[in-house]
């Protein structure tokens, strides 16, 4: 029924004041900070002034970036609308902003706490490593808190009702949230990148310890070097030896081989590679590094990076002594004398090798002769060994530091994208505290996957070593049956727990396999294909899968809590 009374004339009440609108505090802060920096500069403290100005520049960049994001997210589209609200929410949230401020405060201050007596190369590597790792960690926390806080907050406060009754699907709503967080993360990563790059360049201008230090800064830090791993000079003979060893093992112990053939092959191959990387007394071992032809034109030197161990001697006091030949020439040779290297055992060393020594096919043959001293009470010197993999490699310039740095930041961003999707998926089903804990567990598992896998092995007493997935499953099953047979129930439970932990770890990507930070800090090339794989895997495939999971969970969830009894 339409009302029988006549409605009143609109009341011309005195309008309330328009209010303060947005609190425009930041112009005053910016002007004040600039004044403080000017004061420090005038007071003869240029380093502190530079640090303050660096923070100031980051804040200005942040504000400009936010304005750019708002312009970018203007479209009249549901997903974009949710993304825009997400960015606004991020700006209005206290904890994420506090963490962002920590990043802003962390970066300019870090160069100031480095020991000026330390070699510049190490200081730079320390700065790049810690600033990028610190920013990555803090931004991961920002991402988790933002994603869980936003979605759980929307569900708890029923704000989500207001959105989902509009013409938008639940998956679009989740996608919008993810897009908003990822764009906000992109801004923060860019700012952190600018801060780290500026800090590194400022640090580069500081005085070096000696000429070698300056050369190392230029050739080993501000660069992007590709890695060449050694191949056996007589590859076919080596393969034949391995095959023969496998055949012998199969003939000697057919039952053991039949239990785990792939594992046996892997183990025997690893054993032969280790033997090849071991240089006994008075033996010259050769290692072939190929594909170095581009390096001949790109730089004057390549680096032989090695980590030698003096076997059978206490590592803390041990030294290794060896002589080198590069493409059959003694190296280094001074005044006709072939010099011997004497280096501490068990740590990394870098030996510069002129690119002029690389032959036209781009090959470098490194021969190493053991010149170790004979230990007291022994008749022969100890052998020298190198860990297969990073224990012996040749690094050559393959790109610019800037390109590498950008790809490293891109990898960091992709990880945050994956983390945002994981947090949203968790929050689509769980309450805020549990969703945050779940997301943190995923993050920690991704960061420390290798370590956790080893820890599981130690816990259950089953060392998977270099075995394959199948052999690992067989190993665990065998162990489980054996423990059940002996009625060792607690140990059997541990094995079952290890299965569950392994299953979880197999679903989590390894951030270590998509590092980025170490590559940038150590001047190693993060190649474009490698970067694209990281971007595709962490920034696209995992987020899509996780958002799909979140959508299924949200779709099945009643978004109203029952109030009756």
């Amino acid at each position: 029924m339409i009302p029988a009374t006549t409605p009143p004339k609109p009341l011309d009440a005195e309008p309330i004041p328009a209010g303060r609108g947005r609190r425009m505090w930041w112009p005053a802060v910016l002007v004040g900070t600039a004044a403080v920096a000017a004061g420090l500069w005038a007071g003869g403290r240029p380093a502190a002034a530079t640090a303050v100005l660096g923070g100031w520049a980051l804040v200005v960049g942040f504000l400009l970036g936010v304005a750019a994001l708002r312009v970018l997210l203007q479209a009249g589209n549901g997903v974009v609308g949710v993304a825009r609200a997400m960015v606004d929410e991020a700006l209005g949230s206290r904890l994420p902003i506090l963490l962002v401020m920590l990043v802003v405060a962390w970066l300019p201050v870090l160069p100031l706490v480095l020991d000026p007596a330390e070699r510049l190369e190490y200081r730079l590597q320390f700065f790049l490593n810690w600033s990028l790792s610190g920013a990555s960690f803090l931004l991961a926390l920002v991402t988790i808190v933002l994603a869980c806080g936003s979605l759980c907050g929307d569900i708890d406060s029923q704000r989500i009702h207001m959105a989902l009754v509009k013409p938008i699907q639940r998956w679009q709503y989740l996608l919008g949230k993810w897009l908003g967080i990822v764009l906000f993360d992109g801004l923060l990563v860019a700012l952190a990148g600018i801060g780290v790059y500026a800090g590194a360049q400022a640090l580069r201008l500081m005085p070096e310890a000696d000429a070698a230090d300056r050369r190392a800064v230029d050739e080993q830090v501000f660069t992007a070097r590709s890695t060449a791993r050694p191949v056996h000079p007589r590859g076919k003979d080596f393969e034949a030896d391995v095959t023969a060893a496998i055949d012998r093992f199969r003939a000697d112990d057919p039952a053991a081989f039949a239990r785990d053939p792939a594992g046996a092959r892997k183990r025997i191959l690893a054993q032969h590679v280790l033997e090849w990387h071991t240089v006994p007394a008075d033996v010259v071992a050769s290692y072939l590094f190929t594909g170095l032809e581009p390096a001949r034109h790109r730089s004057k030197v390549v680096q032989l990076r090695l980590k030698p161990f003096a076997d059978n001697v206490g590592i803390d006091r041990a030294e290794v002594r060896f002589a080198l030949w590069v493409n059959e020439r003694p190296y280094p040779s001074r005044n006709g004398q072939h010099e011997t290297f004497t280096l501490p055992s068990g740590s990394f060393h870098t030996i510069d090798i002129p690119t002029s020594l690389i032959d036209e096919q781009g090959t470098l043959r490194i021969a190493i002769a053991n010149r170790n001293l004979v230990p007291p009470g022994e008749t022969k010197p100890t052998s020298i060994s190198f860990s297969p993999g990073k224990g012996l490699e040749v690094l050559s310039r393959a790109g610019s530091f800037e390109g590498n740095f950008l790809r490293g930041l891109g990898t960091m961003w992709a990880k945050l994208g994956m983390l945002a999707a994981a947090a949203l998926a968790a929050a689509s089903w769980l309450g805020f505290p549990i969703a945050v804990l779940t997301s943190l567990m995923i993050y920690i598992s991704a960061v420390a996957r290798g370590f956790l896998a080893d820890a599981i092995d130690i816990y259950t007493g089953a060392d998977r070593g270099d075995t394959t997935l199948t052999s690992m499953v067989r190993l665990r099953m065998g162990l489980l049956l054996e423990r059940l047979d002996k009625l060792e129930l607690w140990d059997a439970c541990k094995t079952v727990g290890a299965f569950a932990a392994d299953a979880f770890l197999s679903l989590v990507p390894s951030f270590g396999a998509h590092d980025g930070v170490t590559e940038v800090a150590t001047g190693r090339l993060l190649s474009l294909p490698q970067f694209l794989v990281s971007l595709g895997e962490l920034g696209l495939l995992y987020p899509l899968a996780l958002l799909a999971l979140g959508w299924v969970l949200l779709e099945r969830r009643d978004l109203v809590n029952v109030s009756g009894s």
Partner: protein
Amino acid sequence: MVAARQVGEIDIACIGVTKTFRDFWMRPRVRAVEGVNLEVRRGQVYGLLGPNGSGKSTTIKMLLGLLQPTAGRIAILGKRPRDVATKRLIGYLPEESYLYRFLSGRETLDYYGRLFRLDRRARRERIDMLLEMVGLEAVQHRPVGEYSKGMQRRIGLAQSLINDPQLLILDEPTSGMDPVGSRQIKDLIATLARRGKTVLLCSHLLGDVEDLCDRVAIMYGGKVRAEGTCAELLTQEHATILETPDLPESVVAEVRGVLERHDLAITRVAHPRRSLESLFLEIVEKARAEGVKTSGAAAGGPVADFLATGQAAGGPQAQPAETPAAAVDTGLIDQLTRR
């Protein structure tokens, strides 16, 4: 196309709708709604009445696709509640204002406008009109978190109208409003009904429902206990009221005599009473005329163009009621539709 549907078609249909909430172990915990049948036709103002916990809000949330019914079927504008095309034609004002506290009033409307895929220009125009309509122009740039409850209801109402909805679902729309704002919202609902909009009004304020609704369903314990037009439900056929100017005692005695000749008797003789609401509004209007100052949201302005110029008015029952001489000078409806 839904917009082409004819007046009188069924906009909301519920057949045997039941909702049972389950616990973590999927055991039935609460049966909030049980076997509800509803039918709301195009252009009706339909009231859903019931005390707290009677199942009104659960029913509304199922209509909006926020909850899945455990049993039964629901059709909104002929489609499933979660159908995106259907949602384009629905406006919803929840019982509480679930808004982002950090967004300003304008940004809030802009956000919801984006969800309806309105382009920038359309959003700006509609937001200007809606802010004027709900009287929040002056505070449009303040964060919603700083708004009073009444102001939040107003911005909530504005967001529910941003898409010029065909079907408006209002859950306790006058909750938290002062009598003036409450009156304005009721007038707005009446205006929209005249424009052919369908309104589902959920309230436990019986006066609001009686004032506005064509049909009413009364729920209790999750079930519809009574359903029909207000006239059907409220008319007492066994009695007759004759309204006359004040009668002296002698005339009353004569009337009593006449009735006695027909074996009837007067059961009650009393003077009619006006409603408290109309008295309140008259006092406020008088104070305003005397120039007494106040604060709060400004009075609502005219209905936004895109709402006012919608579908033509409905049948004869939708015409404005006649203005009593004692009421205010100009009706809000007349002013709202002046554009």
